[in-house]
């Protein structure tokens, strides 16, 4: 006991001694926080910084001077002058006791458990487990639960920490996981056995500290220590969450999230996690050429032959009869090189990356992004969704919306209503409701006007409507009226993928009177286009191209039905196989890294366009990635090395174009969540998962 009085702690802070070391923690902090501040790791299972505190595992116990019993540090409030011991006899014995209890009924099946090597119980038992058992009774066995295609359960391993339950209830917003039964008969599961319907369910795998919940598609395919991890970005939706791709022998085995507070916190969508099988199935691995145009079969060939065929096809064709379409999964390098290839090498301005019907251009950067950084979504005090289903379009952002709803923010919906995991007020199906809101007379309009930080989110599908620009204009005006202050811009457009936004930044759209997507397709079908470069599937079906007799050049990653229609096929690298820059919806540019090389003869995309340019026209002026990136940075400063990872200010210049709002109901850009992009449609797991929820969605409709 020190007798000298403690020096007063800084304002709002407390003096706490941890193992004799004085630390300051804010008032309201827990004893565990204090231990962390003192760099004393406290072992724990149930505690998780992003979930509510359950205090049920009893692993985090410490001794506090003057307390008769050891205390669970994860929930005990720190107090002024408190003396905590993390290493005392009392603390250690308590933890050893807990560990013993956890192990008596836990199977010793680590050698066949997928969690082995990355299991908290395994790790902590090294420090706190005994080397022999005193337990001579029968061990408990628990039935495994079938909770769907995503998660494999081995419930005998469950240590009842309730992290999965808390995640499902608090973060994912689905009341599907829970505990039934009492005492040692308590079982964790879905009450009535059924597949989880959350788009975030996979996170329970990461949260589960033991091998009770493991990645089902990944089951028994690799041990964690065999995997080589590559830190990269999830480009499959517009959020751009941080992920790690784990590969073994040139094959991506699984994807897991990385922590990034500003973007994905530490969560990952199921569409990203469980679609990695697409990266190694049905791939284009060599250039292909159709011998005897139109009739013959596609056959593997060499790059030189394929290039020669393209050179032949474009020779003498009028530039207005050449066209190119690009998919929504491409990096800045891909997009820049493709546009340069079309415009500079071939001299054609018929190039587009937007959905058919979308005429919104990239003149104003602020018009195409979320002007409210994701982290600040947490501060919103009212939300208006326009033709947007954030649960399916950006599940990671829906987490933030749930959070503000819990704090009391109302959510208004213009467009179709769906179960967003929180209550909403449906204002109407059509964009006409925006006019009513602009009038400012209804209760919803008043609520938005009264809110200090309203968030207006326009879904990506809105842009592709004939009245798209008018809707964006109306939403923008509303934002100008109620959602813009010096420190807040509440106008947000939520595109479907990072690639879509990146392509706009790279100006992959007709700038000088060229044809846009819908026009290109129409002219192709009517044979006014002689050579069409199809860079990815572009959300098209064979019917969209039916009737065209020109030369179809397909540059892509998978042997899709569209690739099968092509006359020349060039195999490119998937997003996991190249270094790329991608902007996310908030305009933050991030770099992906190659986890594995492209398969066999496939090549990085920009190299293809660079090499081809030399054959068919003017050689593109970059020979290395560095040169290309320099060109990109000059073209769009947000992509300069020093800007990577940050959000550059986007000056507001108004959005859209005045026009008539039609009575056509607004719909979300995502129908089938698990099949949302061409990448997902190549995944067998995604198909299974979509089939699993399809009946649920029909029921809701």
């Amino acid at each position, binding site marked *: 006991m020190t007798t000298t009085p403690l020096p007063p702690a800084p304002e709002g802070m407390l003096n706490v001694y941890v193992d004799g070391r004085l630390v300051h923690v804010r008032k309201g902090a827990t004893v565990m926080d204090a231990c962390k501040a003192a760099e004393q790791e406290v072992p724990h299972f149930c505690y998780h910084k992003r979930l509510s505190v359950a205090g*049920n595992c009893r*692993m985090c116990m410490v001794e506090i001077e003057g307390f008769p019993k050891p205390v669970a540090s994860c929930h005990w409030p720190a107090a002024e002058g408190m003396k905590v011991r993390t290493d005392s006899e009392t603390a250690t014995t308590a933890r050893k006791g807990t560990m013993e209890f956890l192990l008596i009924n836990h199977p010793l099946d680590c050698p066949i458990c997928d969690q082995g090597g990355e299991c908290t119980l395994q790790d902590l038992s090294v420090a706190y487990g005994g080397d022999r058992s005193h337990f001579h*009774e029968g061990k408990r066995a628990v039935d495994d639960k079938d909770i769907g295609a995503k998660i494999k359960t081995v419930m005998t391993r469950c240590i009842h920490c309730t992290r999965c339950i808390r995640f499902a209830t608090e973060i994912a917003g689905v009341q599907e996981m829970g505990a039934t039964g009492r*005492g*040692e*008969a308590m079982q964790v599961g879905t009450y009535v056995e059924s597949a989880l319907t959350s788009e975030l369910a996979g996170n329970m795998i990461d949260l589960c500290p033991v091998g009770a919940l493991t990645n089902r598609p990944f089951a028994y395919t690799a041990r964690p220590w065999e995997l080589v991890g590559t830190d990269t970005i999830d480009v499959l939706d517009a959020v751009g969450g941080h992920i790690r791709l784990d590969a073994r022998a040139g094959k991506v085995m699984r994807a897991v999230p990385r922590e990034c507070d500003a973007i994905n916190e530490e969560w990952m969508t199921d569409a990203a996690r469980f679609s990695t099988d697409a990266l190694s199935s049905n791939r284009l691995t060599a250039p292909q050429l159709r011998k005897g145009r139109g009739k013959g079969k596609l056959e593997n060939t060499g790059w030189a032959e394929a290039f020669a065929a393209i050179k032949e096809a474009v020779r003498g064709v009028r530039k207005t009869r050449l066209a190119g379409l690009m998919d929504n999964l491409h990096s800045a390098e891909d997009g820049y090189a493709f546009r340069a290839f079309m415009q500079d090498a071939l001299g054609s301005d018929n190039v587009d990356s937007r959905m058919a019907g979308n005429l919104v251009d990239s003149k104003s950067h602020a018009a195409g992004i979320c002007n409210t950084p994701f982290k600040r979504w947490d501060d919103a005090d009212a939300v208006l969704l326009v033709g947007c289903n954030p649960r399916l379009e950006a599940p990671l952002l829906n987490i933030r919306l749930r959070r503000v709803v819990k704090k009391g923010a109302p959510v208004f919906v213009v467009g179709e209503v769906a179960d967003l995991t929180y209550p909403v007020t449906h204002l109407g199906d059509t964009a006409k409701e925006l006019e009513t809101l602009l009038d400012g007379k209804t209760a919803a309009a008043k609520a938005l006007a009264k809110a200090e930080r309203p968030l207006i989110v326009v879904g990506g599908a809105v842009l592709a409507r004939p009245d798209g620009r008018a809707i964006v204009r109306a939403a923008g005006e509303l934002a100008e009226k109620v959602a813009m202050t010096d420190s807040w811009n509440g106008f947000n457009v939520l595109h479907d993928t990072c690639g879509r936004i990146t392509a706009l930044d790279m100006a992959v759209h007709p700038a000088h009177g060229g044809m846009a997507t819908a026009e290109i397709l129409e002219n192709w079908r009517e044979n006014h286009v002689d050579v069409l470069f199809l860079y990815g599937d572009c959300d098209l079906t064979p019917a969209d191209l039916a009737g065209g007799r020109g030369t179809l050049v397909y540059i892509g990653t998978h042997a899709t039905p569209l690739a099968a229609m092509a006359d020349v096929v060039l195999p490119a690298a998937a997003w996991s196989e190249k270094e790329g820059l991608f902007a996310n919806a908030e305009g933050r540019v991030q770099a992906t890294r190659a986890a594995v090389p492209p398969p066999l003869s496939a090549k990085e995309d920009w190299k293809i366009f660079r090499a081809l340019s030399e054959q068919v026209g003017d050689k593109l002026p970059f020979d290395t990635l560095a040169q290309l990136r320099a060109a990109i940075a000059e073209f769009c400063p947000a992509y300069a090395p020093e800007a990577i990872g940050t959000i550059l200010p986007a000056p507001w210049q108004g959005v859209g174009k005045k026009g008539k709002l039609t009575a056509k109901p607004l719909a979300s850009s995502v129908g089938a969540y698990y099949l949302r992009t061409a990448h997902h449609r190549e995944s067998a797991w995604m198909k299974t998962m979509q089939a699993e929820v399809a009946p649920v969605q029909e029921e809701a409709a």
Partner: protein
Amino acid sequence: MTKKLPKLKLEDKCFPNLDGAGDWGIKGYQKRGGYKGLKKLLQTAPAEHIDKLKKSALRGRGGAGFSTGMKWSFMPKPEQSGKPHYLVCNADEGEPGTCKDRDILRNDPHTLVEGMIVGCYTLGAKAGYIYVRGEYYDESSRLNQAIREAYDAGFLGKNIQGTGVDVDVYVHLGAGAYICGEETALLESLEGKKGQPRLKPPFPAGFGLYGCPTTINNVETIAQVPPVLKHPLDWWTRWGRENNHGTKIFSISGSVNNPCNVEAPMSIPLRELIDEYAGGVIGGWDNLQAIIPGGSSTPILTKELAEQAIMDFDGLKPLGSSLGTAAVVVMNKDVDVLRVMTRIAAFYKHESCGQCTPCREGVGWVYRLMHRLAEGKGTADELDQLYAITKKIEGRTICAFADGAMWPVQGTLRHFRELFEEKLRDGK
């Protein structure tokens, strides 16, 4: 033997109709003096009530023995909290051996209703909930009838007796989990969730039912508040020793000639209680083997200890046990103590909520080991191990359930270890 305590006369009792001889309804209750003086209680400042309760040394009858006046003083003032306040009555009587609240609900339900009215008023609550154990279905319907009668007579509802006090009382039936008798598990259950104790702090007085200031008390405690407040202080304090005053219902069961619920003065010697009220031990006092003095979770007493036992909160502590719910379970020499104690261990295994590790995993282990040892299968080392396991559970859990489950085991090992050893010798 010292002088015997006098038996309580009707006017000395808080529960004059505990035996059910009279009318349980409102007429009978009023004839016995019920609701008389209620109006005055509702016109007296709550602080005065709390002060008097503190002086009376009325301590929680549910087992913990915490001063009621103190507990009530922890509630914030309604104007400070800005939230509704609640009084919740814990009628989830589940402790094996205990059946006192049942007789209150059955034979004198208006004592509880009046207690709820006074309690709600004192605590600034406009609503009170009575959480009745699911098995007490008949009792709950009687309680509901009593509440109906009280509404009809103007003792419940808006502006009671013209005092401007509003109180509504609701009855909620549990679903049979012992743990819902733990006050915060009770709140969870009342809120419609799985009955599992909450982490404390925060305590219910600040963050209770629906996150509002809440006080939870046992049936007997709440029902004793009006008599304590209505009578002069010494009506109550003449019974029992310092800080243990008043009268108390004792549930006496087991090897006695006349098992009963009886209201008697506090601090009564255990032997006197059994001899005077329960017709003595079957086969005579010398045939006594052991006594559980306060419900299944209080450690067992040997005959020698039982002879010294004074039945109040402070009297049993030096003997390594406690008053608990004052449910006295008597075992004479015909009883297989190990079987009884193993059965009690089985009960706790069955009733653990399963939330926290030591209890979920440990209580079942203790039961199985004890069961095996009680059958003579095992080693003397395992007796020590059994004790060691109870020590790894006690004091390491979220709520006091596990402590209550371990104390009887520890008590058995302390006083009846030789019974185990005998079995182990026989088992060989």
